[in-house]
Structures are given as C-alpha cells and as structure tokens.
C-alpha cells in the first residue's frame, strides 16, 4: 500500500509538472501552427514577460499601490512589452524574410533569442526576483488510506487550471474567429494567403502577440515556482520533447505531450534513476520523444503530410 501511495504521488506530481511544461509548449505550437516558424525564442519570451511583470510589480508595490491593483497594472505593462516585442520581431526579423524557407526563419528566431535574453537582463536586471502570485504549499490527500497521504502541490493545480482555460480560449480563437482562420491560411502558404488579400504582416504581429501573452501566463506560474530569473529560458528545452510527442501543430497535443513527458520523466527518475545513477529525467524526456518519432514522426496529434509526387 505504501509503495502504491508513492507511485500515485509521483504519477500525479509528474502529470501536473507536465502541464506546466505544456504552458511553455503552447507558445511554440501557436507560432508554428500560424506561421510555420519554429520559434526558438519562446523561452526568452517567457523570461522577458516575467521580468517585465515582476519588475513593474516591485516598482508599483514600493510606491504604495495596493497589491491587486499593482498586479493588474503589472500584467498590462508586461502585455504592452510583449506587444512591442511582437511588433519589433515582425518589423525587423520576420517581415524582411517573407517567403523564405522554414530553416531561414528558424535561424532568425535563434538570433532573436540572444537579443531578447540580453535585452531583458540589461533592462530589467539579472537577479532572482520572487513572484508570489499563487500558493506554493501542498495538499495531503487520502491520509486515511496512505501513510502521510498523497502530496499534491497547489501551484501545480493552479497551473493545470490555467492551462485548461488557455487551451479552451485558443481553440475558440483558431476555430471561430476570422483572424484565427487567417492565421491557419498563412501557415499553409505565405504567398497564397497574400494573394487572397490576407495582410501577412498584421497576421504575424497578432500571432507573435498571442504567443507573447501565452509566455506571460507561463511566466506567472513558473515565476511563482522558481522566482523570475534567467533559468526560465531553459524551459524551452523542456518544451521541445513535449512538442515532438504531441505534434507541432496541435494545441491539445501540447497538453497530452506535457502529461506524457511529466509523468514519464518523474517515474523514470524515481524507479529507473537509482538503478543507473540518477539524474536521468532531463534526458529521459528526449528518449520518450525519440520513441514517438520512430513510430509516428508527426507526433501523436500532428498533421500527417501526404504529398503527391
């Protein structure tokens, strides 16, 4: 019974951690789905959004603004920063590269990553900034059935709720709005979309703005968990196997991929780690991703591309 309780605890913890990875992966999916660009800068965008939020929050609270008002104003300021970032990226990085191939656009986002990381730290600082927006303590469930109960962290549950709301909102946006449908048309073919009158620069601005706002949401949860700091950019590496497993174009895929990666790596660390020296969870997620690539290269929910020759 004790062993089963431990297994359940690790499994639940892993699944919820996976949802937190999905929050970052969603930003990648959005941009890939809408523009066909693999946005390497998504981790840097989470850092920038988090720093803009926490530094403005510190500034406002220090001047006696009540916390709820300061949070609202901080979120608005960070949203504006992400809008400015989206405009700058569209204007100076992607705009000049319309109709270039995917690899060129990908390389340009690598360049954007370094600029965003450097600029964010230069403007807002490179220290660790606590961001206590959500509770971080834990519930201990089923204490009568399992000694010590099953630990469930409240922050992880908040992360799950936020991810659910985001997915629902994004699904509506893509399926039910004119802009959402235009985004999908641009993703299929830049030139064809332009030829039917879709303003590609506007569409790219919108998609980068939405990805920036998703990054801001991810930053609120991860900032509460770790404090806002440079290490948040490493989450991009955590999101990559999530994308490979879930598929680069599927919003639900990002969630399912996150659940598989989270549960898989935590169970592997707990049960396989001690046999082979531990510290395996970082690369185990990539082992899972490789296994999925072997049997389903487009990911579990990705679009299968069939081309006539």
């Amino acid at each position, binding site marked *: 019974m004790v062993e089963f309780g*431990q297994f359940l*605890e*690790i499994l639940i*913890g*892993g699944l919820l*951690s996976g949802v937190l990875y999905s929050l970052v992966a969603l930003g990648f999916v959005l941009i890939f789905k809408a523009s066909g660009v693999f946005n390497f800068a998504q981790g840097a965008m989470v850092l920038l959004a988090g720093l803009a939020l926490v530094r403005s929050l510190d500034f406002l609270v220090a001047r006696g603004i009540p916390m709820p008002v300061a949070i609202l104003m901080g979120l608005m300021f960070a949203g504006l920063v992400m809008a400015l970032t989206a405009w700058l990226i569209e204007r100076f990085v992607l705009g000049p590269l319309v109709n270039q191939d995917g690899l060129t656009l990908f390389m340009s986002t690598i360049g954007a990553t370094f600029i965003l*990381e*450097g600029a964010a*730290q230069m403007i807002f600082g*490179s*220290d*660790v*900034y*606590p961001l*206590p927006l959500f509770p*971080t*303590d*834990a519930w*201990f469930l089923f204490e009568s059935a399992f000694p*010590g109960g099953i*630990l469930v*962290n409240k922050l992880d549950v908040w992360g799950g709720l936020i991810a659910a709301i985001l997915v629902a909102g994004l699904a509506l946006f893509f399926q039910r709005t004119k802009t959402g449908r235009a985004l999908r048309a641009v993703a299929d073919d830049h030139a064809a979309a332009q030829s039917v009158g879709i303003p590609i620069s506007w569409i790219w601005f919108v998609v980068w703005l939405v990805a920036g706002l998703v990054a801001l949401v991810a930053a609120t949860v991860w900032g509460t*968990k*770790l*404090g806002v*700091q*440079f*290490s*948040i950019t*490493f*989450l991009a590496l*955590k999101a990559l196997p999530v994308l490979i497993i879930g598929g680069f174009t599927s919003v639900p895929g990002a969630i399912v991929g996150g659940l598989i990666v989270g549960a898989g*790596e*935590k169970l592997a*660390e*707990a049960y396989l*780690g001690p046999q082979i*020296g*531990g*510290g395996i*969870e*970082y690369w185990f997620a990539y082992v899972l991703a490789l296994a999925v690539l072997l049997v389903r290269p487009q990911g579990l929910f990705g679009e299968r591309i069939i081309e006539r020759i």
Partner: protein
Amino acid sequence: MIRKVLALAAAVTGVSALAQPVLAQNEQFLPALVYRTGPYAPNGIPWANGTADYWTLINERDGGINGVKIVFEECETSYATDKGVECYERLKSKGPTGAGFFAPLSTGITFALTEKVPGDKIPLLTLGYGRSDSKDGSVFPWNFIAVGSYWSAADAAIQHIAKEFGGKDKLKGKKISLVYHDSPYGKEPIPALEEMAKSYGYVFKAIPVTHPGVEQKSQWLAVRQDRPDYVILWGWGVMNSTSIKEAAAVGYPRDKIIGGWWSGAEPDVIPAGDQAIGYKALMLQHPAGRFKIHDDLEKYIISTGKSAGKDTFAHVLYNRGLINAMIGVEAIRTAQKKYGNKPLTGEQVRWGFEHLDLTADRIKELGFEGLLKPLKFTCQDHQGADEARVHQWDGKEWKIISDFYKADAEMQDRLVKASAAQYAKEKNITPRDCSKAD
C-alpha cells in the same frame, strides 16, 4: 560599398580598442573570469563585484601593489566550461608579463584549466572550490584551493549534524542524504561523505539534480519517502532556492537542511521567501556584513561611484570576492619581495602563493579581521586552512550559530593522498620533493 565596409570595420576596431585596457609596462594584468549573465548570474555578480572593487581599491588607495598598478579585464563565462577555457586562452598572455593568476569560480572550469596551467605556468586560485585533491601541492603545484575544500566542507557539515544529534556516536543508523548539483562540483563531496559514513555508521544516500536545477520534484518526493534525518544540500545558483521551495512543498523541515558554502548566500534564500527560514549553510569562514575593509571601500570606491555594483555590497558572496582578490594581491606582494616591485609572470606569482603567510596581524592590518583566519600555504599544503562555521537564515539575515569546525586532518589527508597519487599516475606526473623546494 567596400569603402563603407572598411569604414565600419575601422570604427568597430576602434571601439573595441577603446574597450580594452591600455597596458603600460608597470602594470600587473589580472584576468577576471566572471558570470554576470546566465543561470548562475545572481551568485556570480556579487563575487565579481567584490573582486573588482578590491582591485580598484588597491589602485585608488595605495596606487597599486607597491606602485605596480593592477589592470584587470572581465571575461564572461556564464559558468560554462567551454567559455571559461576560451576566456583563459584569450587572456593568458595579456599584459607586459601575461596573466598573474586565474580564479574561475567554477569547479568545471577549474578541472579543465588544471590540465592547461602547468604548460602555461600560471597559478589557479580556487577559493573554497575546485579539485579537493589539489591541496597536495607536490602533485598540483599550480593549484591553490585556498581556505577549504569540499572534503573539509563535508567534514564540517557532518560535525555540525553530529553536534545537533548530541555527538558523533549518535550518527550511527541515522539517514543522511546529499541533494547535489549533477556536475564535477556537486559530486566532489561524495567520497568524503561515503568515507565518513563508514566511520560513523550513518546511512548515506546521494540524490543528483540535473543542471540548472529548475525541476526537482522527483528528488524531493524521494526525500519525503525516505524521510532522512538530515539533508546536505550541494547546489549552486537557482538550484538552491528551488531545493528550499521544494523541501517546503513536501513538508521537509528547513532546519534539517544544511547547505555547502556555495549554497549559503542571499540569492539562495531570498527567492524562497519565508520558506527559507531556519535553513542552515556552511560558511567559508566569513559571514555577510561590514568589517574594517568596508570602511575603505565605502570611502574610495562606493562614495566615488567606482564600485562595480554597490547593490551587493557586503553580501556573503561580495565579501568572498573581496577575500579572493585580497589573497591574489598578497601573493603578488609576497612574490615582489623576491622578484622586485614590478609586474610579475605567472610563475613568479606562483612562488608568491606558495610562500604566502597571512598571519592574524597581517589580516587585521588589511582590514579583514573577522572575515578570515590565518592562512599559510606551503609546498605540500595548497589549502592553507581548513575551518568552517555554520550560519542560519532567519528570514532577514544570516545569523552565525556555531563556532569553527576544524576538518579531520587524518581523514582529509588520506583522501587527498590517494586521489592525488591516482591523478599523478594517470598523468605521468612525478610529485615534487617538497623538502627541496625553494
């Protein structure tokens, strides 16, 4: 077009030439391998500030080391070994006599440079980090692991835990877990902790955390399930505050966690907020706070706007940066007694390190009383001191809660001798005969 490109190239070259220190013949060049960006920046910045401020103080207050001005240049490593080696290669030959010494603030970079410095004849000062076996100066003539090694630190941690339990005999059967950064740095204390587990009878478990340590849920769930009597934390950067938060999340008492001395500074506890209250960590002898040297720093550096970053002034790692810089300066001063008051080569500075004797009086004269105890290197002993204290975070500041613990010399020497002999065998090094050293 070509003309434009050439003009741009000339402009860029001009700018970069301005950015480089202009070296005169009577200047001692000192490289500073730092990390002001990246995942470990919150810990790297105060250290870099302390080091830079002390060297600036020596120039501003004293006009240099016996009249020889210090010219230093920072190189950003981001705590990455490859970048550290790149910085080393770029800076080792700078200045009229080349780099005086290197202090990379990274065990990984130290491991890499240990292979290079004998060929380039430049000493490595590794204050409380690096290869623990480099205490043996007969095998590692170019490394100076000043003040303490990870093995002496592990010993101090076990001594403190034993004291809390009521004596070393009470350790028998107790469970002690090490949560460590999965890197050369984090693995370094394991041999000492395993050795002491055999002697004292505690049950030892090592739990690795992968770089940079942002995800530790499975490790702390393992701690929750094992329920160890004490956890030793060997983290760096974000890993430390994340460990404290995860410990709080699984309900593990923070006053049963003791960090190494690279897990006991302000950036390690402040991000964890109230959850860090009660957390303990080793001190590399010195605490945070102001001492006599800070008065001079205030007068010559802070108030004149010459500080590299006054917001970290007198923090734990700022003070450690000061000590790092001071030991290097005093080694040069010692070497000047033999070679004259002029810029010195790395080889000459190495002689200065090996003959450095910082007595209590000299430490007081330098304004470091309370920060450092006497330190003396010899040909055989490149550590010079092996004492540590413990401090505890009360939510606002670190409070010293123990006297000095002196490492068990017998255990340390046994481990050092065995490991250094193994290294010498692998690298075909014939250990120096220290009885014949000059």
